[in-house]
């Protein structure tokens, strides 16, 4: 890519006051580096991924409100986690975590277990217990 062709689109990097370095060629085809504020193609991919996460969070919230899913599912999605990541954070087997996704099972969890989840999500046990999705 030629230095003058390097896109300078507005992107998510702006929020952190960042630019990124790319290797580009100058007028004599010699390599040099240049900073870019962003690129639309990449932003589209990131936006799509954020949208998907947002959808999953909304679905999870609705499911908690309808008593189909436990608050653990909502906070898992909110923290962009999936089952393997969450299981690894709380140090439990995946099948066990999966059972805790059920509202009925969730109500029987001990304080110690709830604390593990709350810590993984960076919230208090009360916040976790009292989330009703509404």
């Amino acid at each position: 890519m030629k230095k003058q062709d390097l896109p300078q689109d507005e992107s998510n990097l702006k929020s952190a006051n960042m630019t990124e370095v790319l290797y580009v060629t100058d007028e004599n085809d010699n390599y040099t580096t240049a900073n870019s504020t962003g690129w639309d193609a990449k932003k589209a991919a990131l936006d799509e991924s954020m949208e998907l996460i947002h959808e999953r969070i909304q679905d999870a919230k609705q499911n908690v409100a309808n008593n189909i899913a436990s608050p653990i599912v909502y906070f898992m999605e909110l923290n962009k986690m999936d089952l393997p990541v969450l299981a690894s954070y709380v140090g439990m087997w995946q099948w066990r975590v999966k059972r805790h996704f059920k509202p009925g099972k969730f109500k029987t969890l001990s304080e110690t277990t709830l604390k593990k989840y709350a810590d993984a999500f960076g919230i208090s046990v009360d916040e976790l217990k009292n989330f009703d999705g509404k």
Partner: protein
Amino acid sequence: MKLNFEHHQTAHCENGVASNLLLNKGLKLSEPMIFGIGSGLFFVYLPFLKVNFAPGFSYRPMPGAIFSKAAKRLGIKIKREKFSNPKDAQKALERNLEQNIPTGLQVGVFNLTYFPEEYKFHFNAHNLVVYGKEEGNFLISDPVMDYVTSLSESELEKVRYAKGALPPKGHMYYPIYVPENINLEEAIKKGIKDTCKNMLAPVPLIGVKAMRWVARSIPKWAEKKGSKVTNHYLGQLIRMQEEIGTGGGGFRFIYGAFLQEASVILKNDQLKELSKEITAIGDLWRDFAVDIARVYKNRNSKSNIYQELSKTMLHIADLEEAFYKKLRNAI
């Protein structure tokens, strides 16, 4: 306490940390040199490993591999340590700082407070350098950032003990021996040979063959899983390709810069030509990303769009195969 450490922003975190740490030891090697000698160009497809609800693609080797390979080929010794107890990890880091050793860390990006929200994923193979501690905060040189930053003790512990795939487990590393005379020519040749071997590997999961597998899968995803899921998979492909300067186009350009430098060191004009060739291939990867982005925005609603994307990627794979074969013969 603040060590004398120069922060240079780079395109990719691992090369950047390696290049910055070696510079601190008095060895001036550019980011592309580390990348090329460490055989950073790679492609692997892991269809059964789901990352962010899409199959795993990677345009880079295992975390740590670039620096390890580069160090081995240059005769540099790196010390690597992991700790089961976070407190020990912090103590060891502070011990290093007291001994005037800037230290590289493997971290998870999800809790990196200075990153933009969109980049915070459960991805645990990011690298940065700690070069001091002031008022209880660790001073951080993150090579993809324009400027240096800092993290509190608890913030740093969080990213050093991120969980999920490839957990860092407090992993820290630093060069402990740099030879006086370095055989750069030999190291460059080894790096190039290894890259050609990997990219031309006769297994379907790695290199050019893996690219073809992904390319052929695109229309199949569309058929079996519908356009929404396919678009998400393709999005993953772009993110892996272009996230913070790494991957497809970006990596090819770093490799182009490497071949250009290498052509001077090895006095080999052919490498200069090949540098131009990989640059052109890098441009095609970027065009491919633009094509995918267009599919998202539904500006291109042609029904055979996935077939066309597949064809484009197969074409790039063909060009790459020819490139690595020529490169293998050029040294």
